């Protein structure tokens, strides 16, 4: 590296899966030090928060679903919870169980898609699932079968796998008879085997070292692994402090979104710090509430036991926060979701009505659920007619972006220390680091432009 003026080189490499719009990574390197890593997301803005204003309070579930074709159920149910909160409606009992069942379907299909089609090729050295399937056809077919089982749950309960039509405020347009769920159960029993095999398969992958030393953030429930509801809970970095929670109503006081010049996605900070939502955070915060079977799978996968419920003041070991191993947690979560779906179907009794009424009133409502990729928060302000006067949506990837950038900085720094300066190698590494977090800003992949700015002595440290 010369000490001359800054040298900028642009390296164009293909396909960062699950990054909306044109994603570019801007690395500022001074000598052998990474000064700054910026993940630039040029997602063409679609203005959901703007055009929701003036729409009816009944519409956010269907409209916000269109933010993401990969996790529409997450959007539908976060929207329902926020509007129901505003209107003072409570959805519980079998209706709430059916929502959890629908969500399990999305967890199964979305996490399976990521594991098999997007993430596994990284570990096995393939460009895509099509090439990977030639040598690993059994695993790919099993993945597709498992994904299909998740889709089958959404199709039966929701009408179709992408943008299901049966979700509405207060519950569903139509609830199934017990007999309709029976064929689903047969399919899920096969899926349980497939999910086990998937856990065993990914356990055999080779995991590079990694550590995500940021605050972990997920919903928590007192007696179950939180999916469709819960209280926002923080597991601080450093591991010497205990968990703390806050009601979803004060979410805006803790999670602040800011706009940065290098991205069309808003970034958020949790109490001013970088934080991570998603599988790793859920496992650290709620892992002890997984089923015995899922806990056994986690142990077999080498994840060990999740942290136990913290005693006041006791220091906590957060367990593994190696982002490369997030694929293991996803596989365990799929197994859990299959099992949970079977449990809900087994205990299902059709509710007296398919939905409870949600009459509009002038109020502000907040709602959060655990999308496959992490905590998804919605807030709506309504007038007395039920018209939306303000909408705010905080997706998981907006929250994770700071942690992803931190991860990139560490990973590139470690490579530079090892003397790796080849840009295509660095770019490949960066893509893997990003994919570990399964980012999805309403999803897509264009090009990751790795734009390395190498500075001489006149470089300014940033941030």
């Amino acid at each position, binding site marked *: 590296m010369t000490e001359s003026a800054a040298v900028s080189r642009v390296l164009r490499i293909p*396909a960062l899966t699950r990054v909306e719009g044109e994603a570019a990574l801007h690395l500022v390197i001074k000598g052998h030090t990474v000064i700054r890593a910026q993940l630039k997301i040029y997602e063409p803005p679609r203005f959901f928060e703007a055009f929701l204003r003036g729409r009816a309070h009944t519409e956010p579930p269907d409209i916000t679903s269109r933010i993401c074709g990969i996790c529409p159920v997450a959007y539908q149910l976060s929207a329902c919870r926020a509007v129901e909160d505003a209107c003072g409606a409570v959805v519980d009992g079998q209706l709430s169980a059916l929502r959890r069942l629908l969500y399990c379907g999305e967890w199964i299909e979305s996490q399976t898609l990521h594991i098999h089609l997007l993430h596994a090729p990284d570990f096995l050295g393939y460009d895509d699932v099509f090439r990977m399937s030639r040598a690993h056809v059994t695993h790919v077919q099993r993945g597709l079968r498992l994904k299909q089982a998740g*889709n089958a749950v959404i199709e039966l309960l929701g*009408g179709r796998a992408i943008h299901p039509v049966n979700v509405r405020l207060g519950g569903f347009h*139509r609830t199934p008879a017990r007999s309709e769920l029976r064929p689903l159960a047969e399919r899920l029993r096969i899926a349980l085997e497939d999910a086990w095999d998937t856990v065993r398969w990914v356990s055999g992958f080779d995991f590079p070292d990694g550590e995500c030393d940021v605050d972990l953030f997920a919903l928590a429930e007192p007696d179950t692994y939180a999916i469709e509801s819960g209280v926002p809970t923080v597991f601080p970095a450093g591991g010497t402090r205990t968990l703390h929670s806050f009601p979803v109503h004060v979410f805006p006081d803790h999670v602040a979104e800011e706009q940065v*010049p290098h991205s069309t996605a*808003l970034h958020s900070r949790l109490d001013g710090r970088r934080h991570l939502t998603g599988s790793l955070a859920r496992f650290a915060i709620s892992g002890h509430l997984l089923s015995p079977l899922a806990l056994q799978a986690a142990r077999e996968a080498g994840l060990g036991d999740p942290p136990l419920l913290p005693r006041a003041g006791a220091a906590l070991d957060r367990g593994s926060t190696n982002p490369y191993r997030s694929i293991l947690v996803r596989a365990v979560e799929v197994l859990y979701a299959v099992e949970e779906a079977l449990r809900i179907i087994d205990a299902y009794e059709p509710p007296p009505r398919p939905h409870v009424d949600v009459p509009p009133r002038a109020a502000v409502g907040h709602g959060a659920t655990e999308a496959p990729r992490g905590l998804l928060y919605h807030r709506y302000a309504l007038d007395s007619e039920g018209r939306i006067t303000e909408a705010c949506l905080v997706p998981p990837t907006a929250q994770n972006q700071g942690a992803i950038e931190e991860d990139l900085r560490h990973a590139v720094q470690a490579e530079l220390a090892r003397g790796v300066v080849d840009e295509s190698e660095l770019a490949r590494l960066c893509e893997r680091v990003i994919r570990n977090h399964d980012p999805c800003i309403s999803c897509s992949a264009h090009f990751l432009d790795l734009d390395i700015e190498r500075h001489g002595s006149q470089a300014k440290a940033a941030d």
Partner: protein
Amino acid sequence: MSGPVQPPNSGRRPRVGVFKFASCDGCQLTLLDCEDDLLAIAEEIEVAHFLEASSDVGCGPYDLSLVEGSVTTAEDAERIRRIRAESRRLVTIGACATAGGVQALRNYADVTDYLQTVYARPDYIATLATSTPISAHVPVDFELRGCPIDRSQLLEVITAFLAGRKPGVPNHSVCFSCKRRGTVCVTVAHGTPCLGPVTHAGCGAICPAYGRGCYGCFGPSGTTNLPALVPLMRRDGMSDEDVRRFLHTFNVTAFAAVEEALEEEDLP
């Protein structure tokens, strides 16, 4: 349509590209949701460009390009021209690509106001005031409707283009599919407002089978009679504002075009 996307027996698998513009990714995902057929399709074609699924990015020319999403930036308006120039056949998939999608609601609002609502620093954001379908920018060989598109229709379109025949995608309304499915009409039986009579078939008439009215996610059918339907929706308790919102959602530009045509007919 003239001839298959590539001459038969040329010994070369047709090169297919999948491209994304402003959208939710759901229509591309539909392709990955063809689980049973996915690997079979992959055997028949060369996936030359499918960023959601593959890190191996091949450049054009493409025998068949599937395009998802709408055009909302000046850069994307350029990009679709480049893709068109490199594609023998270009098929748009989904409501964003065929009608501008739900984000086309900006076309009827002040985009500066939208920018200020979402972003503290609108000056950082480059965006067009409109969200437009692909056909507003380049010639399109076939448009597949739906928000999202239907899996079997997508397979039919791909198969038809590979074989050099016209896709068998009907142009009639959702009502036909409802009858075929044996669903009792939700409007007649329950007074539920339903856009089925004016909406393009293709979804399989899902909503009425779940007891809700069709909400028009496939856009207008080949023959729409809005003047006959609107009074029914009013009878069933919808205000003018409700009717407008009902029509102005996932295919806002397509339904708005139907409304405009009607207004012109009424002129003396």
